[in-house]
């Protein structure tokens, strides 16, 4: 089953070898629910109308974001722009939930990509481990590295993106120093938030990423240097 849907202000690509098309409907329904609840662009969404009485899903998101705020020394801040905006976590988290549901339903081979945040498990239809390219931060149709594996969550945050602006919560200004941050690890919600936080830290984010346990990273700086953690599963070593 392969499917592409435009939802959550982005594009979701599903690739589940051997799965029936109906499975795609269930996943799309999930992403639609996430969009209805967490979109900052919808005036009637729960996030837009939030007044302190969270739904179970909202409570889960707010709790996770509070933990991430602490883990990132305040650099992952869902209040950084003033209004409540957990988008930097919700996109990755919603893909992780979809991937977990696929696994629970017996589809251990899949790739779910929402706007560049990816969960892969098992193998692709070719029978090989999944291969994830990281977009080159200056050349849209080229890659700067390729990551491979059978159980990966890959999130990228970058200043070249449009439609979502990362700000340094301590200055309320766009950060500088890092062009693109990719974080790879067991959970896409956390990876997404870590990538956003490192980008907000600027060049200090490079040293901070090196301190993360269980999460690997690849970073391209504004002065065009590529750094990666020693354990990053690069396809070319």
């Amino acid at each position, binding site marked *: 089953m*392969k*499917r*592409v849907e*435009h939802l959550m*202000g*982005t*594009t979701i*690509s599903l*690739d589940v070898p051997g799965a029936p098309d109906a499975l795609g409907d269930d996943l799309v329904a999930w992403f639609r629910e996430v969009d209805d609840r967490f979109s900052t662009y919808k005036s009637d969404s729960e996030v837009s109308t939030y007044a302190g009485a969270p739904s179970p899903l909202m409570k889960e998101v707010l709790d996770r974001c509070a933990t991430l705020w602490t883990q990132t020394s305040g650099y992952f801040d869902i209040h950084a722009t003033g209004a409540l905006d957990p988008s930097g976590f919700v996109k990755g988290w919603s893909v992780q939930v979809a991937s977990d549901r696929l696994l629970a339903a017996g589809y251990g081979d899949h*790739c779910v*990509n929402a*706007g*560049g*945040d*990816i969960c*892969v498990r098992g193998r*692709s239809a070719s029978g090989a481990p*999944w*291969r*994830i*390219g*990281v*977009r*080159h931060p200056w*050349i*849209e*149709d*080229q*890659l*700067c*590295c*390729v990551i491979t594996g059978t159980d990966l969550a*890959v999130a*990228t*945050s*970058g200043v070249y*993106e*449009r*439609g*979502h602006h990362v700000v340094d919560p301590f200055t309320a200004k766009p950060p500088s120093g890092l062009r*693109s941050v*990719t974080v790879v690890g067991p959970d896409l919600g956390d990876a997404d938030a870590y990538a956003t936080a490192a980008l907000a830290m600027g*060049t200090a984010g*490079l*040293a901070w990423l*090196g*301190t993360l*346990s269980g999460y690997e*990273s690849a*970073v*391209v700086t504004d*002065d*065009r*240097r*590529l*750094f*990666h*953690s*020693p*354990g990053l599963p690069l396809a070319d070593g």
Partner: protein
Amino acid sequence: MRRVILSVTGLVAGTTLLISLKSAPGANRTPQQIEEDAARVAALEAAAAASASPTPVPSGPGQTPKPPGQTPTPGRTAGPGSPTKPPTNPAPTTTTKKPTPPGTGPIMGDSVFTEFGYVQVAIKVSKGKITDVIAIELPADEPRSITLSERAGPILRERALAAQSADIDSVSGATWTSEAYRTSLQSALDKAGLG
């Protein structure tokens, strides 16, 4: 006095070590110790220069111990008030790492980034153990004096930034808008898969 702790990884199989850079080496080191530091660094540099070709010391601009325009010794004597080397901020370079035979000359490490700036060091290995460290690239306000310390966690390594196309299943990138998606590599992949 400020101390900067750096770690160096991947130089010898599985080895990580901490290096402490003292920002004011004269503050609590005796003149004799400072002279010993300077002599030690000078000796290692001489050894590095002498063994440059047979050992895996790359020749890229970012890994030249003395950048053009810098006088050879004063910046490295580590005395109080001595000038410090400006940070070289070179074009992306690659490093070569090979298994380390016992007793070889200094081996260049990866350039890494710390909260204080880019840092690159070379190590001297004897009988499989790291015996000394030379600073190749340091933040502008950090002087030469380096001491080995205990082990630490991993930090990021540098590799050359190159544009590539490859056979992939999916693309990770900061592509939030559907508008951006339409012109993206992921869009091309999806079209190929759905067509």
